[in-house]
């Protein structure tokens, strides 16, 4: 019987087979063909979304995952519910039926992306040169097709940038993660992009922060050297992340145990 894992993250983990972005998951799929991966990651989303998905997986989801992996992201992201559409129809279902709010986009017997259907606007919390273009792509991709209200536009322009409220939420989410991972050995977290808070340990997989590890173990002084033009890990970076950072960590041991058990 296949072991089954859930993955929660942002664009760094939101992998589709035709994409380079998040391709560390393709390496995971190849190395562990007998582990089924359900990927709840969503580009542009932040810890409020991760918190929501994690809560769903722990308290409501009928699937009993053998391992949940959380890939942390920028601490200043947020999302807001809006009127919106899913597959061309105004999305509305009974909120008592949480499972119906998710759709499995099945790529293979081993790998699915899991999409949360209700519409929302996402504030990326980072300024990019081509913000409008990226917003358009991301929002279309994730069904965030609400009306162009001023509120929507405010968020598109990242008014929530560096909001202390959002940073406070992320800080509390880290505390929550630490609390539950202290008692739940099947929940591991890490990030390929170092959280800009040195008082926070950004992983529980017994590794240094990724940027520090790159400097020390690979003599890569600046993580930008392995990023592509979209500020995501390039192909070599994803391979490095998976083969040498993750597989040598507590996460690698956990995946080995799941694969061979």
């Amino acid at each position, binding site marked *: 019987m296949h072991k089954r894992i859930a993955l929660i993250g942002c664009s760094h983990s939101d992998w589709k087979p035709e994409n380079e972005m998040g391709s560390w998951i393709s390496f995971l799929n190849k190395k562990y063909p007998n582990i089924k991966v359900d990927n709840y990651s969503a580009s542009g989303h932040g810890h*409020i979304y991760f918190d929501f998905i994690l*809560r769903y997986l722990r308290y409501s989801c009928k699937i009993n995952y053998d391992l949940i992996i959380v890939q942390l992201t920028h601490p200043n992201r947020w999302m807001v519910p809006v009127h919106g559409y899913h597959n061309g129809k105004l999305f509305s279902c009974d*909120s008592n039926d*949480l499972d119906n709010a998710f759709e499995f986009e099945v790529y293979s017997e081993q790998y699915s992306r899991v999409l949360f259907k209700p519409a929302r606007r996402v504030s990326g919390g980072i300024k990019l040169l081509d913000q409008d273009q990226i917003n358009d792509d991301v929002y279309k991709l994730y069904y965030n097709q609400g009306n162009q209200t001023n509120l929507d536009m405010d968020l598109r322009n990242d008014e929530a940038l560096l909001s*202390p*409220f959002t940073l406070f939420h992320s800080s*509390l*989410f880290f505390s929550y993660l630490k609390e539950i991972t202290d008692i739940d050995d099947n929940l591991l977290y890490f990030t390929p992009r170092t959280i800009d808070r040195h008082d926070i340990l950004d992983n529980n997989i017994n590794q240094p922060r990724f940027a520090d590890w790159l400097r020390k173990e690979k003599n890569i002084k600046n993580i930008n050297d392995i990023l592509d033009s979209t500020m995501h890990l390039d192909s070599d970076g994803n391979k490095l992340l998976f083969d040498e950072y993750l597989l040598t960590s507590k996460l690698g041991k956990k995946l080995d145990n799941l694969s061979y058990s």
Partner: protein
Amino acid sequence: MLNSNSKIKKVAIIGCSHSDIHSNDHENWTTFLARRYSNINFHNYASSGHGHVFHDLVLKHVMYEEEYDKIIVQLTGDNRWSIPLPHDINLDDKWIIEQHGSCGNMYKHRLKFARYNTTSFNSTCDQDLLQKLKTLKEYNRGSLSVNGFNLPEAKEWQYTPGVHTMAQYYSKLFVKSLDRLPVVYFSFHNDMGNNIGLPGTITSIFGERWGELGLVERLDDTLHCTNKGYRDMTDILLESKKFREIFNA
């Protein structure tokens, strides 16, 4: 963290306007409780117009950054949301804490960080009752909070949520998670459930016990309790053995 001492010293209260202390001399069920249990310090984090996403944030704060013996959560509308706003403020300067004017064991906590809050009645679980209540006065649908206070300015671009939005899923999961935590919770208007054995929401119990006239007597034009309503609400809560155990353990 919850305080491991057996003697109860500190109780945190999380909720919306039905629990919020609006001024130094304002009284509601939280101050009535504090007066009844004068040997306990009550810390009131309730914030008008805020929803479960804010409740959740405060709950994490009181669980992971403070030490309380017990936590009470008053649930609210399931379609509310908070939207962070830019705010030039020291990140460590989070809270205003004020002692109540005449209730020395009650402390009001206000989060300073700016945010906009959306409220809505259009998706309540108890439509019939709320439609009746709505006729009393048009409901204020939004609020702006900054430096710990709700500001009166209306926002022209008020966001109107639809049915079954992401906020409602969030609310549903928030309540599910409460069942795993050492928290007591109950509902005021919107029936999000309770874990203290009440037969319904506070307003539905008002209606069942005292009828429509009794309901109007216990709620004001803003659909919040009158002084009489808050006194009866306090008694209703204390009828619950599990709720009383918070203070008697």
